[in-house]
C-alpha cells in the first residue's frame, strides 16, 4: 500500500453562473446532419447548430426534443452531454444509448430532419492550467461526457490517462478518440473481470505511484465514483464528477433534478442542471 503523497491539493475554482448572463442559452431548431448507429446500443448524432451552441464545452449538455414515433410520444426533452463541438463546421455531436421512449424517438431522426435543442446548459469541467497529469475514469454512456474533456486537456498540455470501463470490448466507446487526443487508454471490461473496482483501484495506485495524478474525472458509474472519492481523499487528489438526474427544464426552474451533496453543515440539495452537472468529487454522494 502506498501512503498519501506529500503534494498539496489545489482547489479548482468552479466559476458560479452569473445571476443573469444575458441570453447565453439558445433555444433553437437544429438540422440533423447525420444520426448513425455506432453499435447495437449507441447512436451518434450530428447537428448543425451554429451560434451559441458553439460555446459549449466538455461537461455541459443540451436539452433535446425527441420525435414521436408509432409507439412512443416522449413529452419532455432529454438532456444529452456534448460529445464534440466542431466550430469550423458549425456542428455539435452527441453520443447516446437507446434506452427508452426519448432515445428511441431520437434514433428515428434522419439527415435533413430537424429537432429543437436548448443549450449549452450547466457547468462543464474545469481544468487548472498548472496541472500536469489527470486521470479520467468512465463507464458506459459516461464516456460520451468525458471524451471531449480528454481533448480539452490535450490542448492545454495536460497529460491524460483514461480508464474506460464497459460490459464488453465491443461496447467500449470512443477508444480511438481518447487515443487520438494523446491520452493513454486502458480498457477494462466485465467480460474479462478487469473492470472490477479492486482491479481499477490497483491501476490507480500504480498510476499515482509512477507519475502522480493532479485530478480525477469521472462519469457514468456510482461504484467508480465512490472508488475515486476514496482514493482521492486518501491521496488528497481532487476531482470532478459529472452527474445525472431526471430533468424537466434543464434551466434551474423546476427543482426536479436535485441530489444530495455534502456541505459544511451536513447535506444539501443541489440542482444537477444549474449547480452541475459537474460537481466536486469530494462533495458528491452515492446515488
Amino acid at each position, binding site marked *: 500500500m502506498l501512503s498519501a503523497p506529500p503534494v498539496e491539493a489545489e482547489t479548482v475554482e468552479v466559476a458560479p453562473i452569473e*445571476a*443573469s*448572463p*444575458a*441570453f*447565453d*442559452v439558445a*433555444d433553437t431548431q437544429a438540422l440533423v446532419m447525420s444520426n448513425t448507429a455506432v453499435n447495437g446500443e449507441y447512436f451518434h448524432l450530428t447537428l448543425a447548430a451554429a451560434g451559441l451552441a458553439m460555446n459549449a464545452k466538455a461537461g455541459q449538455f443540451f436539452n433535446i*426534443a425527441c420525435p414521436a414515433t408509432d409507439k412512443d*410520444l*416522449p*413529452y*419532455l*426533452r432529454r438532456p444529452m452531454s456534448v460529445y464534440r463541438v466542431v466550430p469550423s463546421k458549425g456542428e455539435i455531436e452527441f453520443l447516446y444509448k437507446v434506452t427508452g*421512449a426519448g432515445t428511441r424517438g431520437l434514433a428515428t431522426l434522419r439527415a435533413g430532419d430537424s429537432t*429543437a435543442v*436548448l443549450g449549452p446548459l450547466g457547468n462543464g469541467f474545469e481544468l487548472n492550467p498548472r496541472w500536469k497529469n489527470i486521470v479520467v475514469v468512465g463507464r458506459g454512456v459516461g464516456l460520451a461526457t468525458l471524451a471531449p474533456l480528454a481533448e480539452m486537456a490535450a490542448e492545454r498540455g495536460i497529460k491524460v490517462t483514461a480508464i474506460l470501463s464497459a460490459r464488453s470490448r465491443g461496447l467500449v466507446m470512443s477508444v480511438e478518440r481518447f487515443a487520438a487526443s494523446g491520452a493513454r487508454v486502458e480498457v477494462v471490461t466485465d467480460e474479462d473481470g478487469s473492470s472490477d473496482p479492486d482491479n481499477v483501484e490497483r491501476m490507480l495506485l500504480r498510476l499515482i505511484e509512477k507519475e502522480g495524478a493532479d485530478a480525477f474525472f469521472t462519469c457514468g458509474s456510482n461504484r467508480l465514483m465512490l472508488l475515486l472519492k476514496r482514493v482521492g481523499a486518501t491521496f488528497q487528489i481532487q476531482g470532478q464528477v459529472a452527474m445525472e*438526474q*431526471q*430533468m*424537466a*427544464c*434543464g*434551466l*434551474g*426552474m*423546476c*427543482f*426536479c*433534478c*436535485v*441530489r444530495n451533496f455534502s456541505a459544511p453543515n451536513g447535506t444539501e*440539495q443541489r440542482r444537477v442542471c*444549474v449547480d452541475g452537472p459537474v460537481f466536486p468529487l469530494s462533495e458528491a454522494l452515492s446515488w
Partner: protein
Amino acid sequence: MVDLRVKIGRMTLRNPVMPASGTFSEGLARVFSFDHLGAVVTKTITAERRGGNPTPRVAEVGQGMLNSIGIPSKGVINFIDHIMPEYAACSAPLVVSVSAPTAEAFADIVRQLNVPGIAAIEANISCPNIEEDGKAFAMRAKSTAVVVDQLRKATTLPLWVKLTPNTGDVGAVAQAAQDNGADALVVANTILAMSIDTETFRPRLGSIMGGYSGPAIKPIVLRMVYQCAQAVDIPIIGCGGIAATEDAVEYMLAGAAAVQVGTATFVKPNAMLDVVDGLTRFCQRKGIAKVSDLTGAVLDRGMTVDQLEALP
C-alpha cells in the same frame, strides 16, 4: 395594432401571459427578457426554510408530467433579501406566490411581504390545511373562506387566490374566495395523480403521488375555468396545459382574463413569448381590436349543459 392589455382588478398588465408558479425562475432570463411578459410569478415561498420531497420528483406521463417537488423554500427573509433584487430591473409586475399550513401563518407571511416591489400576492391555497384534516384549503368552500378572509385582512396588495382542481365543487370554492375578498382567481394547480413502474413495481415518484400538469390536463381545467366564470365576477387567470396560442385563446373564451404557462416552458422555453406574439396575430386575423374581448366570448348561447346527462 391589437391592444394586448388586460385588467386584473386594479392592475393593468401589458399582456395576458405570465408564468405559472414553480415553473419559472431567473434561469429563464438566459433565454429571453422578462420585459415581454404580462407579469412574473415566483415559485411558492413559505415563511420558513423547507426541504422538499424525495427524488425521483418527476415522471413523464403521456402528454404531461407528474411532479412531487413539494415546496422547497429558503424562507421569506431570503426571498426579500436575495431573490427580489434579481427582479428589480424587470419591468413586468412581480407576483409573489405564498403558502402556509394554517390560515394564521398565511396571514403572517403575507404581512411580511408588504414591501415595495411586490405587485400582487398569489395565495397557493392548494396546500394542506394542517388545522383541519390535512386537506388542501381550496378543496372546500368553508376552509377557503376562512383563509381568504385572513389574507384579505393582512394585506392591501391585490390578492390572487390559486385554486386546486382536486375538488368536486370548484364553483363554490371560487365563490367563497370572491366573497371573502379575493381580487382574482388562478385556476388551477396540478391534479393529484400517480404512476407505477411495471418493471420494478415501485411508484415512479419518490413521494408516491404528485401533481399532473401539461397538455393532458387542459380539458379538465378549462372546464373549471368555465364553471368559475359562471360563479364569480372577479377576473380569472387560467392555468393548465397551455402550450400554444390556441390554448390561451381557448381559456380566454371560456372566461379567463389572463393565462399562466407552466410545464410548456420546460418543453419549449420560448412558449410564453410565442403565445404573446401568437395572440397578436390571432386577433389581427380575426379582426379583434382588444385581446380582452376574447374573455368569456365562447358562443354557448342557446346551448345548455344537460344536467341529467353531462356526467355519463
